[in-house]
């Protein structure tokens, strides 16, 4: 797997109300096979940053290097999982969805279906290979989305609050499952979230972002052995620490929202 370097990345949104900074001078590195969570309140630019890394948005300044190569657009070295359950193609079965990237790559039908089955087994959906997305629960759909993003074997997995729309119990299951998948695949993962416990549970390091403009406030390594116990004292200490860093930013966000109505808070 490959390391990622984020160098002086800045992006400004042009809105009818004038220029709004999305992210400003963001700098950090991610090691190969590292799991990094980007944590911050709504509107802090964390999703914007992920979209830049995914290649959906071009930064106004700075650059992203993946395995030493500059990002110029989207590419199959990265797999992306979004928050929205609707990301799956409703006209394709779970297997068809997972095989999509391989199909685009030109992998023969037999082979891509074998790989897709294997990926669905990895997310424990081997029984739902032939199901259409609308027959699957939200958690299952997100698991298909993860399998789909992994199927064409990208070196980096980008995840934009994939479990934020799930109920709390399902979310816990999903987090455990994702930790297992990551342990097996050793992808470099960038995971955007506003959920502090989720960040502590999943991440090797947590990048804390604050809004207006979106900047990195600090990077905190989580030095807990895996699998992690969310009820342990150390786990809670990390949560407290992160919350302390976030406290200020959150208040500011709400103030800003009130002042500007619906500001362009692309950061989910």
């Amino acid at each position, binding site marked *: 797997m490959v390391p990622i370097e984020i160098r002086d990345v800045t992006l400004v949104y042009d809105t009818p109300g004038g220029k709004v900074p999305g992210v400003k001078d963001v700098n950090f590195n991610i090691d190969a096979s590292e799991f990094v969570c980007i944590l911050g309140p709504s509107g802090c630019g964390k999703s914007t940053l992920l979209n830049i890394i995914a290649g*959906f948005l071009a930064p106004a300044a700075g650059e992203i290097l993946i395995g030493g190569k500059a990002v110029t657009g989207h590419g199959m070295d990265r797999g*992306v999982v*979004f928050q929205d359950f*609707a990301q799956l193609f*409703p*006209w394709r079965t779970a297997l068809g969805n997972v095989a999509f990237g391989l199909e*685009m790559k030109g992998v023969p039908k037999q082979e891509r279906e074998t790989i897709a089955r294997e990926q669905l087994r990895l997310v424990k959906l081997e029984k739902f290979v032939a199901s259409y997305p609308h027959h699957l629960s939200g958690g299952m759909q997100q698991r298909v989305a993860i399998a789909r993003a992994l199927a064409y074997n990208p070196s980096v997995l980008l995840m934009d609050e994939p479990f934020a729309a799930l109920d709390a119990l399902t979310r816990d299951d999903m987090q455990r499952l994702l930790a297992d998948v990551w342990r097996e695949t050793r992808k470099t993962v960038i995971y955007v979230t506003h959920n502090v416990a989720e960040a502590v549970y999943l991440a090797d390091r947590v990048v804390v972002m604050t809004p207006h403009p979106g900047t990195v406030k600090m990077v905190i390594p989580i030095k807990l052995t895996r699998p992690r116990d969310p009820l342990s004292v150390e786990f809670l200490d990390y949560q407290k620490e992160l919350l302390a860093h976030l406290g200020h930013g959150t208040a500011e966000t709400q103030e800003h929202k009130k002042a500007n109505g619906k500001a362009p808070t692309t950061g989910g």
Partner: protein
Amino acid sequence: MAVQDSASAVGVAGATGPSAGARWRTITLNTYPFVVVGAIWEVVAHSGMFPRKLFPTLEDIARSFIDLTVSGILPHHAIDTLLRLLAGFGLAAIVGLIIGVSMGRSRRAEDIFLPLVSILAPIPGLAYTPLFLLWFGPGEVSAVLLVAFVSMFAVIYNTWTGVKSVKEIWLRSAQAMGADDRRMFSHVILPGALPYILTGLRLGLAQAWRILVAVEMLAAVPWGLGWLIFGAREFLNTDAMMAGVVVIALIGLGLEKYVFQKIEDYTVVRWGMIGAMAP
């Protein structure tokens, strides 16, 4: 979904088998309009309000229907009408899909076609009929072109809307997975727009059907159901006229139930992109 739900609800209730209640409901819903219309028709026909020649009983219509079918006259009319319908509507579907898709995909095509569609579509199809007859003369060409022209707008409009309403997140996902423009279109945009496209085709077919029967009366084509109805009026053959109307209703119903609903059940309904239609 609705069908399954009501079926399982009946199953829980107990006594009847799981699907028997739902099946009865379907049969009742499908037959009751025929029963009601037929009953009213019979009452009026037997009441003597109109001369029997002008308001034949269902028995007379049925006899006429059978005679005309056995003699091969009615099938000949029906087949000619169907061929015209398929030619006209087929043309409309192809041209409408091409224009609709290009409008949905390209800003320039949208700027060119949308104003044209907006002014031409609201004009009733029949109003175009004299023009087409003058330009292309009475006969097949006028009939087919008119059917195509009039039924094209529903296809264009709905295809355009469908392509525009393909979810951004599908495009993004497909992009991230390496879809090029061609496969983005065939693998994502077309299936994503399919619910709208099918609606457009269905509405277009209804338009085509309506204008065709009318234009057959005016375009002096030698065979066709519209012509049968119009010609029968001249000779006060009301029963033959009604036989023609029955065939029109049957064909329309058949296309809807056995073509469009089947296509929908197999695609967008199966995919959960729209709910199942009532039976």
